[in-house]
């Protein structure tokens, strides 16, 4: 049976937040009842909570720490997270913090994670995951820390506004190689809207970059 929830995990700056937000907005537009939980307690800025207003405008329920604690980098897990993970009528999307410290939250939520597919997001133009060996090494590190198995890889190779079709394809090749070694499927390739006609070897997920600075 297909798992109802999705969790996006990975290294710092791999694109978890962008993909989680895009996924939540897409599902909401498709008419699903969807909640996004920002569980990133390691990054001080550029978190999905910064776009709470936008997400809510499109009908996404946003779960963040209460009141002024949205500005903190302390491990606050809002209790509603347990609710949205268990509630059969809500698709929960978890935006998890980066690296070993960020992913530790999944161990804490473990008893509630049975119905959640975990996506390991990879940008091969980032330090430490630019090679198959790097990906495999940090995949294992994060999985051990999370104490849950991952379900999919996501190819999110990009250079922000400088992304090209070649960059995306080069990333897919490396991610495919890693997927063979790790024996885990690639769910999709994230493609920025300005390259939407790009030819991809995996399913294409077209995304907007909501976190990009406007100046």
């Amino acid at each position, binding site marked *: 049976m297909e798992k109802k929830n999705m969790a996006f995990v990975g290294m710092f700056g791999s694109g978890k937040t962008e993909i989680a937000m895009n996924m939540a907005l897409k599902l909401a537009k498709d008419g699903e009842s969807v909640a996004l939980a920002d569980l990133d307690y390691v990054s*001080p800025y*550029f978190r999905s909570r910064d776009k709470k207003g936008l997400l809510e405008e499109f009908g996404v329920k946003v779960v963040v720490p209460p009141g002024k604690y949205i*500005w*903190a980098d302390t491990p606050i897990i809002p209790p509603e997270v347990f609710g949205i993970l268990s509630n059969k009528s809500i698709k929960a999307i978890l935006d998890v913090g980066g*690296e070993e410290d960020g992913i530790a939250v999944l161990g804490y939520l473990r008893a509630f994670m049975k119905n959640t597919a975990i996506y390991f997001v990879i940008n091969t*133009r*980032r330090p430490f995951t630019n090679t198959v060996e790097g990906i495999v090494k940090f995949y294992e590190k994060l999985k051990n820390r999370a104490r849950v198995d991952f379900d999919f890889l996501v190819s999110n190779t990009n250079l*922000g506004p400088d992304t090209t079709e070649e960059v995306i394809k080069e990333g897919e090749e490396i991610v495919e190689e890693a997927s063979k070694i790790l024996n885990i499927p690639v769910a999709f390739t994230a493609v920025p809207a300005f390259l939407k006609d790009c030819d991809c070897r995996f399913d294409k997920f077209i995304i907007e970059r909501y976190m990009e600075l*406007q*100046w």
Partner: protein
Amino acid sequence: MGEKIMVKGTEAIGEAAIRAGCKVYFGYPITPQSELTEYMSRRMPQEGRVFLQAESEVATVNMMYGASSVGVRVMTSTSSPGFSLMQEGISYMANARLPAVFVDVVRGGPGLGDIQPSQGDYFQVVKGGGHGDYRLPVYSPSSLQEAVELTIHAFDVADKYRTPVVIFADGMLGQMMEPVEFPDPVDPSTLPSKDDWALTGARGRKARYVTSFDIDPYKLEQMNLVLQETYKKIEAEEKKWEEFMTDDAEIIFVAHGTVGRIVKSTVKMAREKGIKAGLFRPISLYPFPYERLAELAEKVDIVMTVEMSAGQMLEDVKLAVMGRAETPFYGRLAGVIPTPAEILEAMMKEIRR
């Protein structure tokens, strides 16, 4: 140059330091720069170099003193409260003439403050937060590619003048992501020799001291005069700035770092409204590019400073402008980032005044 990669500001500075031949990194985690410490903890061992997490910022700066004394390239990074803790040691290093690179990823203050971006450490970093007559070259990047270049430059300036140098990066610059290209690593054999002063072992030669101390005031005064001569040279040779649309400008903004970048958008918005605005962006905060700003001020009525502070660089702007133009100020405090539109609105008020 290698291939482009996507990095955070903290990673850009860390990798640039490695390319510049930084052999030793000491640090203590503090938001919003902990990723730099974390990056170095992974990368330095890969390069066979030293990463050491100290027990505090006070320990860090004294480790810097020790490592620099033996002639290696050394760096630390911290954020505002941590930089405060380092001041005593930085003053010691300045007088001991020890090259080193400090990175201050500035956050909201004073006190514990918050973890959002700020430029409120300007006085402390640029005017000297420690005791005594010393100055530190300070560079304020406004993009990550520039952060890479300035970090490498900071090591060269530190060695050339035998002084600590600071990279002033606000929290936004530390956390934002941009594609950058890194230059190839420097060849260590091409770095300037430090054999004439570093503590390399006294066998076969007279023992040396690397110290900030002399009990004889006349000798201490001589040490001070050497520093002052050095600062004169730095002021003559090391000024850096960028100008954006200043040629025909009728109003000039002055802003550095992240705010410099935001004000570029304001300048474009103003020009769309038919107002000829321009930007003067100091890159070296010390030495501050007074002369060029003074020239520009001759041609305009308003030189408007914008900072994420209550108006600190403003004092240097006023020293440059010296009454040639009005010098209004717009600032946000405590970690709030001004938007291009609100800066434009503040500018319009000044024009109508």
